[in-house]
């Protein structure tokens, strides 16, 4: 498996604030190869061209929401490592996305200790 700093990360959120916050957090782990997308459709296109090791995906987004984006990515690559990142973590939403293949579900703002665990798992 790749070293932490070699990981490629895709951050998907319609809010520039969250994209910037997440970029900042991911960069602080030593990861430099980061792409962003604003909705589920863009995420799917970026997923195909960028082949990220890790995707952080918001749920409520215009055009194509995160659940649809997740569904598209998982049908394209069943090994995709997608972590849902939402400000609204109801049990139904958590269950729905995990069933679709999301590996984890984090509440915004993502806590460093959770990001560390996810990245440790990816590089171990």
């Amino acid at each position, binding site marked *: 498996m790749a070293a932490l700093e070699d990981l490629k990360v895709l951050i998907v959120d319609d*809010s520039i604030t969250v994209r910037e916050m997440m970029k900042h957090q991911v960069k602080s782990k030593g990861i430099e190869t980061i792409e962003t997308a604003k909705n589920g459709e863009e995420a799917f296109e970026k997923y195909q061209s960028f082949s990220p090791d890790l995707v952080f995906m918001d749920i409520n987004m215009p055009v194509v929401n995160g659940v649809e984006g997740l569904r598209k990515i998982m049908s394209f690559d069943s090994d995709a490592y997608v972590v849902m990142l939402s*400000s609204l*973590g109801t049990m139904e939403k958590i269950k729905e996305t995990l069933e679709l293949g999301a590996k984890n579900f984090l509440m*915004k703002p993502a806590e460093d200790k959770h990001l560390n665990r996810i990245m440790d798992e990816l590089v171990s």
Partner: protein
Amino acid sequence: MGVKYFGQYLIENNYITNVHLLEAIKYQKNKNIKLGVMVIDKGYMTSEQVEQALNIQRTQDVPFGEACVDKEFLTREQLEELLTAQKEDRIYLGDALVELGHLTLDKVEKYLIEFKTEQQEAQAEINDAFDHIVPEYKDLVQSSIQIINNMLRRLLDEYGKVSGCHEKTNQEFSYDYLVYQKISGAINCYFGIALNKDTLIGFSSKILKREINAVDEYAIDGVQEFMNIVTGHICVLLSKQNIASETFPPVCVDYKEFASNEPITHSYVVPILMTDEQVDMHFLFY
């Protein structure tokens, strides 16, 4: 009157100068022994282990002592012994001011009693303020304020202080913007943050960790996302209590132009003081 720190109270009342306070804080910092130093002095841990535990504390947001116990560098008993010793030897602000010769012990004791009395009254005032809220909304308002303070700390590195809770009347507020979200379902509410232009810009600069100079899409997005995160946590809280609710996306409007399609039955405003600014949280139930 409001909730404040002892040092702030002493300056406000001219009992000491700001220079005295800064000296005393520095003195405390130098005199109070850190746990990382104590474990080495006691021979419980090596400096490499301290470094490892500090690294865990920084990256995983856990207290230093807990990190040491988790890594089995310290036993739980050793940690408790050290924490007790640390507490016993701790130099408080009053001690520091006496040791530096800025106040006598008698004066410190007198001012501390005055301060505690004032703080009890201030706290009672705030509790009384929340008591005015109709019972079905009281928990929601209080829990929301806790979530906001938690998020202010995490996202803006600010420690907000609640200075009361008022019934909202139309004429008493003159903010520039209201960033709000609608919550509907078993509880129906507009939940918003009212701020002035400079506060909005400062708020977003801190969240985005870069300078923003105008109320542009970035500035607005920063505050909207703050609200979105807070409201999300509130809805999870409601969901845990089996209160079904739906949230709508955040909206930023001119404060004077906020209009509701529903008749507002109860309006509450909770001012939160930050380092340099004040924001007012609005809870408008319909």
